[in-house]
């Protein structure tokens, strides 16, 4: 009980401090353009990493499994600008189906 609440409290406080650091310390000042460009590119860098690790790794091992099917469907859907919900549901369904078959 106390151990779990401690983790919940500390993880929450840490996250809130991390999120507030920029807006509360920096205020409304404009950033230099070079820094803005790097910050803009943080999104594709992290998205690339999240997509890759959540598709091709499991417990610190590189692996190719049913999630590849979901990835291909999602990539095709995103390229064709399909509705988000359709892409997400189709990717999950394809992965679940492949997993059930293999």
């Amino acid at each position, binding site marked *: 009980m106390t151990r*779990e*609440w401690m*983790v*919940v409290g*500390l*993880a*929450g406080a*840490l*996250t809130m401090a*991390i*999120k*507030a*650091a*920029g*807006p*509360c310390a920096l*205020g*409304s000042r404009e*950033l230099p353009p070079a820094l*803005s460009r*790097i*910050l*803009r*590119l*943080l*999104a*594709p*860098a*992290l*998205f*690339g*990493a*999240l*997509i890759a*690790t959540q*598709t091709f*790794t499991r417990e610190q*091992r*590189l692996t190719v499994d049913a*999630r590849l*099917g*979901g*990835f291909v469907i*999602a990539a095709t*859907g*995103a*390229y064709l*600008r399909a509705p*988000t*919900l359709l*892409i*997400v*549901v*189709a*990717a*999950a*369904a*394809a*992965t*679940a189906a492949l997993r059930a078959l293999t």
Partner: protein
Amino acid sequence: MLSQQSNVPLDDDFPRETSWRAGARAVLPLAAAIAVLGVSFGALATAAGLAPAAAVVMSATTFAGSAQFAAVSILGAGGGPAAAVAAAGLLNARYAATGLAVAPALRGGLWRRFLVAQLTVDESWAVAYLGDGHFSEQRLVGAGLVLFAVHVGSTAVGAIAGDLVGDPRAWGLDAAFPALFLVLASPHLRRPDGRITAALGAAIALAMTPFVPAGIPTLVAAAASLVGARSR
């Protein structure tokens, strides 16, 4: 406000409407996926020994699925509280950068900026992005409030309903999230520097995965933005 925004050069692939309603509408298609994640988190957290109230408080304060799953899975596997908190902190460290990026868009006093900053998660941040390094506070708040309500509410449902969800993998839920990130990344992927950066980030994360604990490859991959910024 409006005259200031009309000076912002907007990219065709990024949104133009900057009301909080537009932000809320933009994340509605994600609500079902977010709710399924919240229900899964509630169920897995209680299975790992958290009280239902603790699971709900964690969704309201940590408010980031990947960090919450990491912390709870470490506790469930018998890991120490310090390791669980460190994993959550590392997975959320990227919000220092996203917070910095949205900071110029936030108005009002310290307390107001603190609260709005808490609504920054991957999805609300992506939805608030107007292109060219600019963000809409209204879209961030609209999207963030919808995500917060769905995330916390579905966690409560999962924590109480517990075992009904079963194995999230059987539903293909583990593929729903990369699919979601792919959709969110697609405006960036339509630009050459965004594509280079994403590919490099993916390569760095995959190369590091066998050698360092979970969450750290994603953090190191953030360095891809430094290389991408040098490309033309």
